[in-house]
């Protein structure tokens, strides 16, 4: 088989760089893009070089950042602009290949294998793409070139001064293997802990570890990361840049203050689930896989999912599943900062519904009609015209409109492919 050529291209500190491109004078001061301070949606999303030098960290709260760097200029994010400018950048990638897979706003894989005979040397092409993005959009990008997606991503994360890092079958043992195992895509803090307890510290350690032991200890996830470490990833670069059929509907939210118990979280999830249910109905879909993702104040992240016996697009039922999942899977040792939920396993909502002997059909019908009525009222009089009583108790916490406010969802690497261990 012809060896693949895959680029992973990353817009360097994306949001901050776009702001600098729009207002070049921002390059002269320490600056970071972060959430609304007064609403306390506050974490640093991206920072410029001066802010980095001053010790500002991505992901820390605005207050912590101001402590590290009192002169820090904080700019609220302009998501519409980021979507627009990153879209222009990806249009440039698409001139080189039809296979461009977005990974969040700022990153993308480009499969160059089939275009090689048109453009020639991959390295020269990578350089050309870098130059064009800089000349035409005013942004710098880092490129990783390799024969698989995982090492290409590793390459762009190296932030090589030249902007391009090449990982080949001849050099990956020297370049990738000495790096800490955490640098491998999809090794998060939980997986890192499990690996370290087995004496696996570097990607090389992981590659050399017997795969059957990993599989036994960590399930399919263990097998997958072992393959990744050995350069055996052969997943394709999917074309998701243009409109693709929706596979899931989800919303997430950074809260105005951290929350340390399930009861306080319920109203927040009510608002999120109402938005999800409403968007599902707009799309004429219903789904049976409910996922919950949360990020703690320590910025650790995990996701759990479960399958419902029947598909739904009713907020009450989604909420019920979400809260059950959360209560059984999170201990609240660390308070939560951001929460999200999504519904997948989507099918067009049918007009027929198999009645259940075990569930209360009347309750379902009532919940469905409440949703419908609320959507109607909101459509006519605005989002805040009607709300559930429980969401009025802590207004600042629930004063957000996830359906219409701009939300950006990172796109999962596995694209809905199931992993046995949700914590991977």
């Amino acid at each position, binding site marked *: 088989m012809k060896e693949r050529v895959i680029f992973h291209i990353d817009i360097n500190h994306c949001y901050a760089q776009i702001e600098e*491109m729009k*207002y070049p004078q921002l390059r002269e001061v320490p600056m970071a893009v972060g959430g609304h301070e007064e609403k306390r949606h506050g974490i640093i999303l991206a920072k410029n070089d001066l802010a980095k030098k001053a010790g500002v960290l991505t992901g820390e709260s605005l207050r912590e950042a101001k402590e590290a760097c009192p002169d820090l200029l904080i700019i609220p994010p302009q998501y519409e602009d980021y979507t627009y*400018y990153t879209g222009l950048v990806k249009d440039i990638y698409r001139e080189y290949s039809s296979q461009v897979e977005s990974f969040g706003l700022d990153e993308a894989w480009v499969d160059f294998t089939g275009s090689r005979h048109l453009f020639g040397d991959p390295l020269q092409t990578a350089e050309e793409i870098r130059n064009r993005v800089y000349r*035409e959009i005013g*942004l710098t990008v880092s490129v990783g070139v390799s024969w698989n997606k995982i090492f290409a991503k590793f390459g762009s994360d190296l932030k090589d001064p030249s902007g391009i890092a090449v990982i080949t079958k001849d050099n990956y043992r020297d370049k990738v293997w000495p790096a800490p195992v955490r640098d491998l895509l999809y090794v998060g803090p939980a997986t890192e802990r499990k690996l370290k307890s087995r004496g696996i510290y570097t990607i090389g350690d992981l590659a050399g570890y017997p795969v059957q032991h990993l599989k036994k200890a960590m399930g399919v996830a263990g097998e997958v990361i072992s393959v990744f470490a050995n350069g055996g990833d052969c997943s394709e670069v999917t074309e998701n840049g243009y409109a693709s059929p929706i596979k899931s509907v989800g919303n997430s939210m950074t809260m105005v203050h951290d929350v340390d118990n399930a009861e306080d979280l319920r109203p927040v999830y009510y608002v999120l689930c109402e938005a999800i249910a409403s968007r599902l109905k707009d799309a004429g879909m219903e789904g049976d896989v409910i996922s919950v993702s949360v990020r703690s104040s320590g910025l650790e992240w995990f996701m759990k999912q479960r399958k419902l016996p029947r598909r739904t697009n009713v907020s009450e039922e989604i909420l019920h599943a979400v809260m059950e999942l959360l209560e059984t899977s999170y201990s609240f040792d660390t308070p939560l900062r951001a929460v999200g939920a999504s519904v997948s396993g989507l099918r067009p909502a049918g007009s027929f519904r198999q009645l259940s002997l075990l569930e209360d059909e009347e309750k379902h019908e009532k919940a469905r009609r409440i949703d419908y009525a609320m959507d109607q009222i909101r459509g006519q009089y605005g989002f805040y015209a009607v709300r559930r009583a429980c969401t009025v108790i802590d207004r600042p916490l629930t004063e957000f409109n996830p359906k219409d406010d701009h939300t950006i969802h990172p796109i999962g690497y596995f694209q809905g492919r199931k992993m046995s261990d949700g914590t991977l």
Partner: protein
Amino acid sequence: MELYKRYVDVVLMQKKTGRIVPLYLFWEDGRKYKIDKVISAERRASPVGGCGIRYACMIQGERRNLYLEKDKWFIESYQP
């Protein structure tokens, strides 16, 4: 010499081919400048901030860069 970003009103002609040609631009005080010639039109980032389609124009014998940024026009101006 330092350049400044100045948004301006522009009179355009849309050709039947779909191409857009800027004809005149208006300064804030109402002065009108005729764009004598468009030398090139390419996507470029501007040193004064922003990016868009850069129309390199000849105006009264001088070359000036006029940008279409999303749906607004700005000029790299020598006057603050």
